[in-house]
């Protein structure tokens, strides 16, 4: 079991706490005038995404989390798991719905994702910042309106619903910003 001492704490270091992998967001060394020193740490639970404050006795050791990030290609979903592949080794990984989170709204096969693996199991899937998706359903466009003011909902091929300008029609390709869940522009593929 790899361990990490508090003096190695810094942003980005990953440790196990209460059985869950955590990412250190911020580390501060505190020491009252003449006493025991402590590390005050802001830490993100990589399973739940929650950020909490934790205090450690300086000099303490904690278990290091075996966490790596890989660029994986999304393959398909089988109703229970989402399957990914490392494009060089062809090694495959399956991720549960919890790891997918919002990413499942944006993924279509072949997309490359940043996948956080803990003990070789996907913990978190980050979709590409921008994806191109086809509109499968939306109200008919209003002729002559090209301003984009107002907008209307459109359903995309992955099932996600985004607000689009009135001139967008079924079958068009759209560029979507997955971080905001917003329409960016028409796309040409």
């Amino acid at each position, binding site marked *: 079991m790899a361990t990490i001492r508090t003096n190695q704490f810094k942003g980005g270091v990953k440790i196990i706490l209460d059985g869950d992998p955590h990412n250190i967001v911020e*580390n501060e060394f505190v020491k009252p005038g003449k006493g025991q020193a402590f590390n005050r740490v802001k830490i993100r639970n990589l399973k739940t995404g929650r950020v909490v404050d934790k*205090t450690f006795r300086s000099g303490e050791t904690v278990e290091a989390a075996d966490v790596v990030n890989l660029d994986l290609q999304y393959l398909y979903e089988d109703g229970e798991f989402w399957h990914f592949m490392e494009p060089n080794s062809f090694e495959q990984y399956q991720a549960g719905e919890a790891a997918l989170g919002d990413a499942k709204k944006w993924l279509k096969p072949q997309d490359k994702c940043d996948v956080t693996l803990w003990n070789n199991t996907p913990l978190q899937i980050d979709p590409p910042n921008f994806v191109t998706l086809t509109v499968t359903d939306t109200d008919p466009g209003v002729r002559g309106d090209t301003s984009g003011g107002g907008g209307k909902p459109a359903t995309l091929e992955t099932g996600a619903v985004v607000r689009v300008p009135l001139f967008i029609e079924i079958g068009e390709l759209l560029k979507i910003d997955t971080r905001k869940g917003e329409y960016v522009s028409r796309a040409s593929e």
Partner: protein
Amino acid sequence: MPAGDWQPSASREVLIERAHLFAQVRQFFAERGVLEIDTPVLSQGAASEPGLASFQLAQDPNRWLITSPEFAMKRALAAGSGPIYRLGPAFRAGEAGRWHNPEFCMLEWYRPGLDYHELMDEVAALLCAVATNAPENIPRYSIADVFSQAGLPDPHTASAEALRAAAEQRGWAPSKSPANDAPQARDFWLDLVLGVGISDWLADSGACFVTDYPASMAVLTQTRNGTPPLAERFELYWQGVELANGGNELLDPDLLQQRVAADIAIRVANGQQTQVGDARLIAAQRQGLPACAGVALGVDRLLALALGFVAIAPVLPFAWERA
């Protein structure tokens, strides 16, 4: 090595401010008739406090980088130096963070004939002399007042259990802590509440002196008998950062020996290095240390706070990673 790593951590403007601060400090003490003394950095004595770790010299394992110039300065005082100050580096192994650098600049001074309240006056005067943003009046609160205003249990009487409960309730409790009946449990929870809780709370109060610590936290200062017994000590906080630490100096060589022995016992239990204390200091105090008050002040922190930085690295010529 990252690309810009050869460069100083501080900008040229800050280096000029730093040199100016040193000059102002020296002028302040010259005007008050306090003598500058430069003490050795490599000493045969090491601090005994379990909270301090000294760097040990590989070529000569009986020499240590000083954690403060206290031992040498007190020996000079016992030899009749009169009031003295020392501006220079001190070293603390493992202390690195936003407000800590393992090598830092410390200003320490001793005033025979003054008591710790008079010394607080002088600390406040120094602050005003060197920092344009320093407050005119710095209030003084006893640690009991501070705890009570922060809604915390009485630091003098609360049990380890009560302090622990207060810390846990506020989410300060560390993942590993001593059992409530462990010998140092009370001091452990006091340190935690003080270090983690109070500095946050004091961040909003501008500057203040916190005084009259529990006798168990006396270190090398005098205690005053009474209920509760108090350590005649103070800490200066500014913008939530501990800036200075002083008090009426312990004179009795037997008490000094007892406290060092108690520290060593804790060090043995913790598995820390135990070759600590300074036989020459005890010999000096047998000869007689004049009644005096002394204080140590973190110069890098002072400069950072005076210039509006929220860390000390930008005021260090070369911070630890670049040293």
